[in-house]
């Protein structure tokens, strides 16, 4: 797989990367995927507020196509909050609002003309806890395609099979598609949720700590799956698990919290965003180094 050799290339040349906070604007020679891969998300000074409380502030970073980007950091640092801006899931929290911009292929997602439902069809999400519908495995996967108006049984069968294969679940469930999705194991449920997300053929998949409720073996399956899915999707994953970020991601953003002097509440900030190998081997910021070496958090 080409992206594997890319990654090895990164590791070899890792130390002489230029300042990654302006990634790929002036790419280093030889960084083919960095240079040609499109910028999918371009965050400009993004803050999320709940009422008057600023949960996370000044997120500026770019996320590129066909890469896995990991958000790491201690609890409460706003990484999930920021992730949920990428497909406007924060819309459902009545007090939440954003400042700054989230450009998706150059289009501001919070532009009033943007149809948030269409956004979510293109930018899928996998959640922290597996949340299959209390429906059959088949109906879980077919839910999205049916929304898009696919009615023909043969077409649906095809999408369901393809999606379950894409989520590496097909072989385990192909004989019991009519059984409830809730009857699967935790890891299988999460892969079912991934199948449900990819059934609408999104461009991007957001994963909010997808393995936090799973055992190590199930986690391993999901991680393998992510590496395979990378060729087709842009993936952004929030994780508590630093090893996971190091194993699966191409780029990593480290968030932390700072105590707001006025209110004693914690606001999340983006500390550093760079290639994963650099974040873990030679971070630019002391706070990142403290976190990845386990001295903090």
């Amino acid at each position: 797989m080409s992206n594997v050799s890319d990654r090895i290339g990164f590791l070899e040349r890792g130390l002489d990367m230029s300042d990654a906070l302006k990634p790929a604007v002036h790419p280093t020679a030889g960084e083919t995927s960095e240079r040609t891969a499109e910028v999918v998300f371009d965050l400009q000074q993004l803050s999320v507020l709940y009422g008057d409380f600023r949960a996370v502030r000044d997120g500026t970073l770019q996320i590129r196509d066909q890469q896995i980007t990991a958000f790491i950091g201690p609890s409460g640092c706003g990484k999930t909050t920021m992730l949920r801006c990428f497909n406007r899931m924060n819309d459902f929290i009545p007090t939440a609002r954003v400042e700054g911009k989230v450009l998706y292929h150059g289009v501001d997602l919070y532009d009033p003309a943007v149809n948030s439902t269409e956004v979510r069809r293109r930018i899928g999400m996998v959640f922290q806890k597996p949340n299959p519908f209390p429906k059959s495995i088949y109906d879980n996967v077919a839910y999205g395609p049916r929304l898009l108006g696919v009615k023909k049984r043969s077409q649906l069968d095809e999408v369901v099979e393809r999606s379950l294969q894409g989520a590496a679940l097909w072989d385990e469930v192909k004989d019991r598609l009519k059984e409830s999705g809730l009857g699967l194991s935790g890891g299988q449920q999460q892969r079912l949720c991934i199948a449900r997300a990819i059934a609408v053929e999104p461009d991007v998949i957001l994963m909010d700590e997808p393995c936090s409720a799973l055992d190590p073996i199930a986690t391993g399956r999901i991680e393998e799956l992510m590496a395979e899915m990378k060729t087709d999707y842009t993936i952004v994953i929030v994780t508590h698990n630093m090893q996971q970020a190091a194993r699966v991601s191409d780029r990593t953003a480290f968030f932390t919290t700072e105590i707001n002097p006025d209110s004693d509440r914690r606001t999340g900030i983006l500390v550093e965003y760079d290639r994963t190998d650099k974040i873990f081997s030679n971070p630019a910021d002391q706070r990142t180094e403290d976190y990845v070496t386990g001295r903090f958090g």
Partner: protein
Amino acid sequence: MRLLFQGAAITTMVISALIFFVLARGAISFLVQIDWDLSKLSDTGWFPRRERFDLRTIIVGSVIMGSVAMLVAVPLGLGVAVYLSEYARPGVRRVLKPIIEVLAGVPSVIVGYFVLRFIAPDLVANIFQPTNVRNMLAAGIGIGILVIPIMASISEDALRAVPDALREASYGVGARKVTTVTKVVIPGAISGLVAAFIIATSRAIGETMVATMAGGFDGSGPFTGYSPLESGLTMTAAMTNAVGGTDQDVGGASFEVLYFVGMLLFLITITLNVFGDRLVKRIRHRY
């Protein structure tokens, strides 16, 4: 202390036993009074003083008024529940929910008054031109108004018991709100919604004052068929009317039919409630 508390808990069992005993004893006494002549229970119409106790008359009356009530209460109660649980902003909900609870607190006798003074003469009579201003449609609407808050509150609990994770999952694949509500939330809450329906039905059948005041017959009447525009008699109205005035003779079949009908009503409502309760529990276990 413990014994005292346990005594109080066991008293509730005693109450149930007494209800059953009192009704069963009275029902048997009634049957003895009519010499076990069961044909009297299917005679024409409900004329207790002439010993004609056509059960069909009062059961059909209860079913018609109960059905009208549920036709009012299901769409309105469910609509209120879905609105409050899924659509209303927290501020709006904080205002509307107590208002619905106020409606739940309106005594049924006042709803009976409201039916006789407004719904029957000004609404039903103007639109449908029934033969009698007091009819089963008007009474049924009144019972429906009484039952809306029960329907709404149990349904809302069921809807809110559906985890947000499922709503998010639906939005996450690009579903709209209406799709999420109809395809995920309502199916997820279905057993609770059915329970709300069953418990509300039980309440509608057991509702007494509106049926007594607005049903149209004062204690006796013929079987009027299945049109809600006719006057009718419910089981509950038959019971209050059996007691009649203030100085009635206790005893005699026309009085003791009270127990027989009470037993019937008790068995019907208890069956519905047990069934509804099971469903409520099922939704609690699910999530």
